[in-house]
């Protein structure tokens, strides 16, 4: 008997979580634009509310369109399920709020997206949750930062702004030795480039606004549970292993051996915080997920072409991309990211802030805006935009130079992108 071959990534991208609509035969995923769902009778209603039957009650808690996206991303990540949220930030908040509370402590990479850094540095301390930030490359620092009240380790697969590659296997090992889970923001890599669960992560989230959607039309997030972490054995998570008065005294770990975290996140987090995704957004993001493998291949191929070009330009001081031997995580990237190190990177222009401003303003194809992961190529010059109030010294502390340019490489012809960058580089020289 030949061993069966499970459906591959490309097939799951198109089919996981969805079959032709059983009522209408619709092949595409319908958008279920409804706030609520009719009960068959009073017993059916009670059973749905008490989690005796699986089904939809109210679209803040679950929706059939969202469920397709959730199951599809879970399938692509190799998880047990997922929750679609209003944004990537909502997914991060949901992950933390499900297992941490006042008095809890987190350990996080200091190379984070600015919004995540703000949440951990300024907002969560108001609610009694403190974070110690560590150099993601310093494994000793991760270990030393763990306290008795630590509940979570957290990092990005590719950090901001220097594309620090998170050593997921090593950080996961440190987390597990302390009976803690590792949460990973996998937005820049998507499951096509890296499946963090395969390397020991326990929870993964995405800003689906970026590469999962890919079209730049919908804001959303997805939080995925790997189903691997043993909350009971950890002994640190009574939220999941003891009766919860807020939901019929449910002990989530007893209900589901592998999905206790997701059960509580949906039954409490979506119910109480309410940061759900619109089914319209779920539909739009699903359109992107269908072509994720094809797009990511092209994103990476175009990025390699662009980096090859920039590497040969005299106006370019340096490039931070893990596939380059000059990057400190080059060896790690070869091991964890064999399909490519993504399509977002930074480079430093010679000439400082003024050169950066001239470069940006000369570009015609790259769009000057604050986003990444679009099908269209994007650019931003932090020193003259997002960080314009900061001195050169303060910028340096954040890992940003006065001439640092961040590019998100899209799906256009790489020749046209290179022409556009050539135009910018000529302008930068003045």
């Amino acid at each position, binding site marked *: 008997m030949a*061993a069966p*071959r499970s459906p591959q990534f490309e097939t799951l991208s198109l089919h996981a979580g969805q079959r032709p609509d059983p009522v209408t035969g619709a092949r595409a995923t319908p958008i279920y634009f409804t706030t609520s769902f009719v009960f068959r009778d009073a017993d059916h209603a009670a059973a749905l509310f008490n989690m005796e*039957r699986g089904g939809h009650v109210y679209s803040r808690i679950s929706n059939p369109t969202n469920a397709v996206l959730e*199951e599809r991303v879970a399938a692509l990540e190799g*998880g047990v*399920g997922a929750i679609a949220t209003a944004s990537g930030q909502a997914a991060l908040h949901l992950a933390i709020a499900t297992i941490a509370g006042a008095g809890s402590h987190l350990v996080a990479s200091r190379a984070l997206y600015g919004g995540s850094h703000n949440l951990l540095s300024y907002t969560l301390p108001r609610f009694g949750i403190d974070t110690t930030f560590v150099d993601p490359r310093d494994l000793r620092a991760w270990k030393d930062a763990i306290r008795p009240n630590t509940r979570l380790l957290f990092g990005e697969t590719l950090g901001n702004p220097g594309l620090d590659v998170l050593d997921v296997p090593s950080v996961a090992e440190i987390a597990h030795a302390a009976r803690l889970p590792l949460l990973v923001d996998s937005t820049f890599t998507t499951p096509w480039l890296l499946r963090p669960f395969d390397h020991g992560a326990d929870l993964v989230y995405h800003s689906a606004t970026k590469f999962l959607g890919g079209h730049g039309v919908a804001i959303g997030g997805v939080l995925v549970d*790997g189903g691997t972490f043993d909350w009971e054995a950890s002994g640190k998570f009574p939220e999941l292993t003891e009766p919860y008065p807020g939901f019929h005294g449910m002990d989530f770990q007893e*209900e589901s051996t*592998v999905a206790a975290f997701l059960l509580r996140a949906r039954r409490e987090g979506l119910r109480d915080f309410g940061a759900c995704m619109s089914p319209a957004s779920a539909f739009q993001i699903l359109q992107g997920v269908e072509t994720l493998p094809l797009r990511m291949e092209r994103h990476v191929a175009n990025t390699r072409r662009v980096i090859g070009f920039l590497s040969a330009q005299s106006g370019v001081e340096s490039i931070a991309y893990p596939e380059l031997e000059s990057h400190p995580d080059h060896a790690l990237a070869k091991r964890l990211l064999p399909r490519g190190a993504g399509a977002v990177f930074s480079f430093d222009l010679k000439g400082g802030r003024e050169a950066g401003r001239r470069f940006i303003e000369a570009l015609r194809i790259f769009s000057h805006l604050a986003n990444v992961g679009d099908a269209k190529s994007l650019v931003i010059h932090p020193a003259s935009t997002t960080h314009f109030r900061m001195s050169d010294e303060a910028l340096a502390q954040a890992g940003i130079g006065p001439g640092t340019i961040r590019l998100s490489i899209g799906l256009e012809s790489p020749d046209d992108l290179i022409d556009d960058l050539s135009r910018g580089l000529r302008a930068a020289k003045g």
Partner: protein
Amino acid sequence: MELRVGSGRAYAYTGGKTFDPALPAIVFIHGGELDHSVWILQSRYLAHHGCAVLAVDLPAHGRSAGAPLTSIEDLAGWIVALLDAAGVKAAALVGHSMGSLVALECAARYPERVSRIALVGTAFPMRVSPELLEATRARESEAHLMINHWSHSALAQYPGNPGPGFWVAGGNLRLMQRQRPGVLHADFAACNGYASGLERAARVKCPALFLLGRLDAMTPARAGRDLARAVPNSIVKTLDDAGHNLMGEKPDEILDALVEFLGA
């Protein structure tokens, strides 16, 4: 709740209600390399509808201690010992896959302890191919992938267990991976070695429900119907668009059939 069964600690999920042996009792018996959580929706519903529910973790599975039992006969004896420990005189038994053989064996050997049996995803003989059996012994992770592939009929459910947003195949795979090394082979060897199914089937006196998946590649529906024909008082329901993981893929249909059969 926890019970002492023989010398071992045994766990049984009671559906979110305090177990009351005075109520009509139902014991849910999971399949190989799984645990009680495959029955969450059905057991929780019935516990909240007047039944005393014990969704067990068989020895060495989930939260139950001990070494895995290596024959269907021994597992049946363990279930009866569990009834004793729980103070239950007689119960309806609902079993899936390996658990269905355990329920059949119990009903034949201990007719006074078993009021009804519901066999989900069952077949006799429940032979395991030599290649898969060897994989369960020597290459568990590879065997998990094979079993998971053969256990599901489709890449989507509407919705599956335990609800919307859960990837049923992923959950089933992780649940198998959570079991202790050696359990998988013991379970599959027990199924493969069970030889007296037809003889036991003929001795079953209580009503029996067979719930089969038309697309079941682990225990083909045809083999399930063959077994049902050997049970004197049996009903067969075959579910379309369902594979071997019937509670995962068709949780509502399984519950509705059980409610009707058990009169709950």
